[in-house]
């Protein structure tokens, strides 16, 4: 339920550049849904909307902000729509007020603000609603014929038949249009698709029924037609419901800065990121991301390329040195020159979002449908010939075309997968498309990244190679508490463990605190100089370990270790038992190798791999015939994920973006990977069972049709029942499966 979502109120600190760029009308347009003389309507994505108080508060915006006519919240999608007077500065005012309220809008431009999708959704509602309406009423008008038995008399029969025809028209011409369209497109490209035999069945049903009503001979099958279309639409819309959009629909551009300060015509001005051109000189502050390949012009560049190479050690760059896109500046403000336009940046190429890749079963099914269609047509032709090629034979031939409609075939997968996606999402595993459930089920080799995937990124353990004496603990603690760095956190715990219980927080004063990213931190504590940092920085010597220095003397050395996630080793064990091969590809040093020995064989652990190496190794596995899934932290591993069959991301932050990933697993749930996989296998088996059931219905139908025992009543019963059976079985059974498998929910 939405109320349980874990979004947190965030007040974003905006830079002056950002405020400046907001005044740029081109920038503002990205958020405008509608504009005319009298009004302008904005749509904002506000991640911290999560509950009913948010709705109440934000919809009261007109009371607080001048010029706002109304405000509406969409709780499900986290959107705020605002209508205001079109005056200058209105946009900035709005953002300012929202920030102040604690509901900072996410201002990264994205094309998808819910516009196109809502039109699509409305169309779906209409088609399904109309189909349902026609279905209900056609049933009404068909029943008298079944129930009356003897002559209804007084021309009633005719009246009812014509009514059926009239009410079937919207179903055929409107509600079925999407099916016809997709069938036609597949047919044009000569690609087999399950929609083709379905469209065929619908057309035959319709034409046959119309003919019998107009000519007054034979029996119409409008109720089967309407029932069929209705259940198909319901099944399809069930699968398409986009509740995982929250997780997946963050754009690439989220990681790019909103705007850049550039020097144009000798003046410093803010421009939208999209306008960055080759040879532009632009500023980058601490925390800024390098958007295009550039070289340093002024300042000291300390770049963190974790996002690109996975390397945790930052790199120093000097003037004239090239900096690749994707690095994050950790030092102070610098000036760079862009070496290419923004459009075709490496990052965007690398981060092309995950597309829907068809599963093996879907490919099989599509191929089957091609065969299926031919089989039906030939069976139908055969029946016609066998029964003497007269009117009765024609009736039976058409009956075959009607009952052979593989609607249940088409429903089994979407329904089961739709339900499976939901079940998994409830348990912290978000699958982008249904086909990926099948891919996960078929996975027989899993490649893991280490940092951030198998290990925590924000927590570490460690051990002392040189323990500090009791007296130095307090000043060290005083310094360390100032930092949020994982190593510092780990050190803090280690130091606190060491001191005696009587002491509480240190009372010593801390002055001149400075943190040097990539090196260490220092401060004056009670007059003494305290430093904690890498060996290189403290002592100038090479080597590993974190040195603690007090008054110029090293008083302790600490070796931080990565902390493996809880239960992950058990999960690896279970995967091995299930026959899944495992390997590790890490960009980091091999210092954590012993942690994993025993679970992963030595040949399968590779360290200090660049993204390209990772991708290559994965490709080797794929070529060796394995179905490979890559588990990584999303950003760094996106190249590798692209080479695998299935990319599983364990995001670094809540709701983080993960390109090229097909599945996102919350970090707390990664230890259940083996359970997720097993569940997917059961779900896939479910699909095959459904397919079998539907084929049995088809066979039964064929037998009945061939022997002439098909009547409208039988048809009307058989087809909706087969569709309903599949519906109930796939959704219901999968749901039960999830409950039994995972226990009661989260």
């Amino acid at each position, binding site marked *: 339920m939405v109320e349980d979502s874990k979004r947190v109120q965030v007040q974003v600190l905006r830079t002056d550049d950002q405020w400046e760029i907001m005044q740029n009308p081109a920038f503002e347009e990205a958020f405008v*849904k*509608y504009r*005319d003389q009298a009004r302008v*309507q904005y749509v904002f994505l506000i991640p911290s909307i999560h509950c*009913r108080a948010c709705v109440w508060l934000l919809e*009261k915006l*007109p*009371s607080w902000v*001048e*010029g*706002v*006519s*109304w*405000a*509406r919240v969409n709780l499900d999608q986290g959107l705020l*729509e605002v*209508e205001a007077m079109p005056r200058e500065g209105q946009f900035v005012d709005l953002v300012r007020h929202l920030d102040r309220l604690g509901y900072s809008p996410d201002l990264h431009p994205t094309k998808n603000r819910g*516009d196109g999708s809502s*039109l699509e959704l409305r169309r779906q509602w*209409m088609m399904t*609603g*109309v189909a*349902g*309406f026609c279905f*209900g*009423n056609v049933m*009404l008008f068909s*029943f*008298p014929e079944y*129930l*009356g*038995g003897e002559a*209804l008399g007084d021309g009633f029969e005719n009246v009812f038949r014509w009514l059926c025809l*009239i*009410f079937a*028209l*919207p179903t055929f*011409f*409107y509600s079925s249009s999407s099916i016809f369209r997709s069938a036609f497109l597949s047919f044009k490209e000569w690609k087999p698709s399950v929609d083709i035999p379905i469209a065929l069945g619908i057309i035959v049903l319709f034409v046959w029924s119309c003919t019998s009503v107009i000519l007054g001979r034979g029996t119409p099958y409008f109720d089967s037609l309407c029932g069929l279309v209705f259940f198909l639409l319901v099944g399809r819309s069930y699968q398409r419901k986009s509740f995982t959009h929250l997780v997946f629909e963050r754009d690439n551009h989220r990681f790019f800065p909103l705007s850049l300060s550039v020097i144009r015509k000798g003046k410093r001005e803010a421009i939208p990121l999209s306008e960055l051109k080759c040879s532009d000189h632009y500023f980058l502050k601490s925390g800024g991301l390098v958007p295009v390949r550039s070289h340093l012009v002024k300042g000291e560049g300390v770049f963190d390329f974790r996002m690109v190479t996975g390397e945790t050690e930052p790199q120093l760059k000097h003037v004239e040195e090239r900096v690749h896109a994707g690095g994050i500046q950790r030092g102070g403000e610098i000036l760079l020159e862009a070496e290419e336009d923004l459009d075709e940046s490496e990052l965007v190429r690398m981060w092309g979002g995950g597309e829907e890749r068809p599963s093996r079963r879907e490919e099989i099914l599509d191929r089957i449908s091609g065969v299926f269609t031919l089989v039906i047509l030939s069976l139908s032709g055969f029946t016609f010939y066998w029964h003497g090629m007269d009117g009765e034979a024609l009736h039976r031939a058409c009956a075959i075309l009607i009952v052979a409609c593989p609607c249940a075939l088409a429903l089994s997968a979407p329904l089961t997968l739709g339900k499976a996606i939901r079940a998994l999402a409830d348990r912290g595993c978000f699958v982008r498309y249904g086909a990926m459930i099948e891919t996960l089920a078929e996975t027989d080799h899993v490649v893991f990244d280490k940092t951030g995937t198998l290990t925590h990124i924000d927590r570490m353990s460690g051990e002392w190679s040189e323990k500090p004496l009791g007296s130095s603990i307090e000043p060290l603690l005083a310094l360390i508490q100032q930092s949020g760095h994982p190593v510092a956190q780990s050190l803090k715990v280690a130091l606190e463990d060491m001191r005696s219980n009587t002491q509480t927080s240190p009372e010593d004063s801390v002055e001149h605190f400075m943190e040097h990213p990539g090196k260490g931190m220092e401060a004056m504590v009670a007059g003494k100089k305290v430093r904690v940092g890498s060996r290189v920085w403290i002592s100038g010597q090479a080597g590993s370990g974190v040195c603690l220095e007090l008054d110029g003397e090293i008083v302790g050395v600490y070796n931080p270790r990565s902390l493996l996630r809880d239960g992950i080793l058990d999960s690896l064990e279970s995967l091995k038992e299930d026959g899944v091969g495992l390997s590790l590809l890490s960009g980091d040093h091999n210092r954590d190798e012993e942690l994993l020995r025993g679970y992963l064989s030595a040949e399968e652990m590779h360290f200090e791999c660049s993204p390209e190496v990772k991708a290559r190794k994965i490709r080797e596995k794929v070529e060796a015939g394995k179905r490979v899934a890559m588990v990584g932290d999303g950003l760094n591993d996106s190249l590798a994920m692209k080479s695998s069959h299935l990319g599983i991301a364990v995001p670094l932050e809540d709701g983080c973006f993960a390109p090229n990933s097909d599945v996102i697993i919350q970090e707390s749930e990664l230890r259940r990977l083996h359970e997720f996989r097993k569940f997917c296998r059961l779900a896939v088996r479910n699909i095959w069972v459904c397919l079998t059931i539907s084929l049995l219905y088809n066979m039964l139908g064929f037998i009945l049709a061939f022997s002439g025992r098909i009547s409208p009543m039988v048809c009307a019963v058989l087809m909706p029942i087969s569709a309903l059976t599949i519906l109930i079985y796939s959704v219901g059974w999968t749901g039960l499966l999830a409950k039994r498998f995972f226990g009661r929910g989260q």
Partner: protein
Amino acid sequence: MSTETIRYDNKVVLHFLIASTLFGVVGMMVGLLIAMQLTNPAFNLGPWLSFGRIRPLHTNAVIFAFVGNALFMGIYYSLPRLCKTPMISPLLSKIHFWGWQAIIVSAVITLPLGITSGKEYAELEWPIDIAITLVWVAFGINMLGTIYKRRERHMYVAIWFYVASWLAVAILHIVNSIELPFSYFHSFSYFAGVQDALVQWWYGHNAVAFFLTTPYLGMMYYFLPKAANRPVFSYRLSIIHFWALVFIYMWAGPHHLLYSAVPDWAQSLGTVFSLMLIAPSWGGMLNGLLTLRGAWDRVREDAALKFMVVAITCYGMATFEGPMLSLKNVNALAHYTDYIIGHVHVGGLGWNGCLTFGVLYWLVPKLFGTKLYSQKLASWHFWLATLGIIFYAVALYFAGITQGLMWSQFNEEGDMLKYPNFLETVLQIIPMYYVRALGGSMYLIGALVMCYNLWKTAREGDFIAEDEAQVPTRIGALQTNKGFHRKLEGMALPFTVFSVFAVIIGGLFELVPVIMSEVKNPSKPLVGIYSPLELEGREIYRKEGCVNCHSQMIRPFRAETERYGDYAKPGDYVYEHPFLWGSRRIGPDLQRIGERPDLTAIWHYNHMIDPQTTSPDSIMPPYPWLAENELDLSLTRSKMRALRILGVPYSDKMIESALTDMKKQAEGISRELNKFDKNIDPEQWQTELIALIAYLKVLGVRVEEDPVLSETKAEEEL
């Protein structure tokens, strides 16, 4: 600041609240009275309070005065708040309120006087029907206007339920009230016999749906979340089940007419659709109950929530029981018995009553800015109401099944009825009637406790005549820039729909005149037309509400044909304006009593004056005033003329000589009665009783050729 302050009017809400509560108590008291009358006929006090006349008063009071006022209360409170707009016209609100109460008062006056149309739940005669239409239109303008001017773009699901109710009731009322007046207060239904039955039960069942169910579902979707302070379990489900309901609800009507002279397939249709309706109904029920998941501890402490839970549960029961009762085999046993009354009251007392109580317990403290005076008293009410319903329903389930079984039982040889005397079956269930009356009184006492509680609450608080709200000045109308071809695409669908619409309307224009001419006289008549005296007698039958206890429709079962005579066919009813099939058999079926040789004029005379003389221990009320009241002859000719317009073939001659014909026939009857020393002055033949006897003597008598008609024809040929 682009907001403004609006004020919601609570005064009209309070008015409807008080009206509903008061009339509710009155309606329940009348209900208790008629329940007592069934245990002992001594409770029939004079003509104005006899069972036949005031049973409709009870039904009208509880449906239109209690439930009606309550749903208006609910709508006038919730609708403006959901629309974030006050009701557009305080004047219309006043007209609505006072108009409705005037209608109720007119019911209270006319029904005991015997001014009735004879059609169930539509007994009020034509002037009142017109008043209902006018008030309903005023209500509609007020409601739809408010929705049109709303400042909240999304129409909450409750609003949809209200609108659907309004529209459906409007159409149902108009179609079923098509009648031809022949005096200031009286009319004949336009349709006859089987036609009338179909229209009546199409109305009857849909009235249950769209007056008793859908507006209350709307209220549930508003007041339950408010009282529980949690959103509806699945809003999406509520939208889906609303549309599913209105797309197909209109078809369940025929299930009231199973085994009647309505065609088989129409009956089965009613059954099938009734079964299909379980789905959307239970969707609503589950949605309501699941809204409270995880908050059941609150339910224990909160009176409003307790009642709402009972209400929703009873709704589920009733909507399951209904479709079961529409199955042919079940129906064969249960129809005409008290089981149906049990079913009705589970819905009425449980769903409507308890939901109303729940809303009242939440609304009154809110309107008076205080807390409920006594949770303890509310708790008492809760138990009284719940136990009351249980006693009521269980008693009548027993009674109904007993009746059904006894009526259909044959002796061991299988050639004769085991209980040929109908009275035996009645006496058998009188103990159950006592239990039912007990249940009803518990329910009534509970309601009185509530009245006290609410009154004390109101006294302790201060009435908040208006609630203020800050709302945006402009409505959230969303525009989208659409391209031209998008617009065209968007046209395809409405075009299809409108063309379908057009075809239907066009067809109607052609069909309707044809139908209307056929409708008046569709089947070959199997009975003769009523003579003027018999006609007047039938009017007495209608006036005294005999149809409330006696049916006139023999079903094609052996048990019934053995007991009552040949089963009913459409031709039996061609001249019946309105149809008098009835829906109860508190007394035996009367369709063919005219053919019973043992039921002579003197038998009827004695039976009507005091039923105990012919049937000891009968619970039928005595009708001594019929022998004293002078028969009103002033309207006889108008009646005949009116019926002639409606297709009954009275000739000019017959109408002219009506009074002389009546005199002749009545004198014949009084001569017969005088043989038994009844001392009826032949000159004083003009009593209501004699007319009634004339009617009863000809009821259901089948003729090869209508003697009156053939006589007329013969005379004309001369």
